[in-house]
């Protein structure tokens, strides 16, 4: 029997799931539940899974977006972004400090950098606005999720940026 544990993150919640395969049978364990056989089918050209749970059929649309196990799912009209990775990878990431808030403020939508509100060397607190990005005529102010010191600012006002581009890098304070 091939058995593998996955760690799923959604918002701030973490869930574990075990998938066990034995020949043609697949079993699933969600959270603290039991490992039980699961009825499921990959459908819609691999873009959805039809799965039976609690007597109901659920159609879960799934799209892998980007690397690192980021998955967009829709269930019953509700779109949800999850990250899914196997346990080993999750542990490796955690040991690298991936569990803590990142000191890098990155663009989340494509846009133009309009204003940079901090300078290198400046001390910032959680929630301080650091950079303003304009997209579709809306200005979006991005704030820092850590307390620390501005280490570098790889962009300038007027630069076009894509999702994931680093805008401001902050060296977190120890315990910050």
């Amino acid at each position, binding site marked *: 029997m091939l058995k593998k544990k996955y760690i799923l993150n959604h918002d701030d919640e973490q869930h574990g799931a075990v998938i066990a395969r034995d020949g043609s049978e697949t079993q699933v364990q969600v959270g603290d539940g039991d490992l039980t056989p699961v009825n499921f089918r990959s459908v819609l050209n691999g873009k959805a899974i039809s799965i039976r*749970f609690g007597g109901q059929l659920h159609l879960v649309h799934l799209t892998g977006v980007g690397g690192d196990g980021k998955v967009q799912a829709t269930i019953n009209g509700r779109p949800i972004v999850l990250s899914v990775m196997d346990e080993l990878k999750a542990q490796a990431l955690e040991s690298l400090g991936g569990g803590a808030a990142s000191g890098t403020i990155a663009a989340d939508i494509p846009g133009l950098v309009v204003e940079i509100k901090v300078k290198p060397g400046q001390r910032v607190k959680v929630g301080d606005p650091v950079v303003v990005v304009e*997209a579709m005529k809306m200005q979006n102010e991005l704030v820092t999720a850590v307390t620390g010191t501005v280490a570098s600012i790889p962009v300038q006002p007027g630069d076009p940026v894509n999702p994931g581009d680093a805008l401001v890098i902050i060296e977190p304070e120890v315990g910050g």
Partner: protein
Amino acid sequence: MKKFTKVLVANRGEIAVRIIQGLQDMGIATVAVYSEVDRTALHVLMADEAVFIGPAPANESYLVGDKVLAAARQTGAQAIHPGYGFLSENGAFSRQVEDAGLVFIGPTAEMMEVMGDKLASRRKMRASGVPVVPGTDEAVTDPKVAVAIAAEVGYPVLLKASAGGGGKGMRVVRKASEMASALRQTMGEAGASFGNDAVFVEKYIEDPKHIEVQVLGDGTGNVVHVFERECSVQRRHQKVIEECPSPSLSPQLRQEICEAAVQTAEAINYRGAGTVEFILAPNGEFYFLEMNTRLQVEHPVTEMVSGTDLVRAMVMIAQGDGICYRQEDLTVRGWALEFRLYAEDPSRNFAPSIGRIEALTPPQGPGVRLDTGIYEGFDVPIHYDPMLAKLIVWGEDREQAIARSKRALREFTLHGPVHNLPFHLWALEQPAFVDGSYTTSFVETDFDAENYLPELDTDTTDALIAAAALFESMRRTDPGNDSAASNGPSSNWRFNARRTMTGNR
């Protein structure tokens, strides 16, 4: 006038697609225009011809009348349909098109100009007997005059720039002591923003409903109305859900408000399709707000309940065929709701989103219409309005329309940009929406961005977690085709699932 054989559509996105479909339905050849980032946009793919008109920014492409007109001449189009936004209410462009000997499918420049000037249109409407919000019809510069008017109509009042629009150039004044500084500021802003510092005073109607009436005019004084729409579900002064008919009007009020709209259009011998917007006060009084001299985003709800084709009607009027409907033949059947699908995040103050359409499953079946500007694989550009598509749902009555809308919204899958489909599902569950009592402050008052999504029940959550883990497990074991797995052939997916969904029996 001769029938058009080729028409240029001076727009993009879902409205360009809808107009192209309407023209195809009349057997008319279509010409699209497109900017740099719209080379593969849906409206380009659907048109018979397409002309490149410049870089992505609208003021270098879709807003440049010269380029659009040149494209029409080059392709031999006899007429230009402007859609909404962009050049649709630009009097200079309308004039330029007519001067070039082509037909602008819409009103004359003069009609746009009188309706674009709030003071001029107020005066015109008052003279025609259409109710306007109590206040002045003249620009006010002296705070004393403003205070005197406010005392007469009662506080709060609104200072409004005559050339303003889209929620800009307005300021609420709640007492006399605020008047002088508010007037100075509003005039300053109006001068800076619109190049015209004329400001006037009117009563501020709190918590109103937004009701509008669709009209068609032939340009010689004949006007019919095609009933009202209610558009009170708004965020950031922009409509997100519209319905036809309105749940807020008694038959008598409906008749009055529709007649007022006809009067409005008759007063300027209106030509083409237009929308007369009213605010409906909590006390049941309604007032002329403004007239939009173009096809409206939400025109499909009117089409669904009245069985009309407003694009065809516009083209026929422009061809000189007159209005293709007689007032006495127009009737309301059933109820229609429109949901604007925006690439925006309801939980982050409706901030726009963007990106590639990774997965798209449109809803199907009875009562469902989709007007769309996107397809799977399309990169939503940053430069324009974030509206992707409109879902329009018809039902025999409002209750069925709501129930069908829930079904259609749940059938609708879109992955890629963050979008507002969950907002629509939220709205359909709210008591103020269900009973029709919602006003323009509905979203502001009732919407809690942090907690608007209902909790998923345990089974659903478990199903989601199990499905995502299975998806990942299949993605990772898919040999040599890691990143593309989600788009790969389904045979890769079935390796041992084939026998697992056994029956219950």
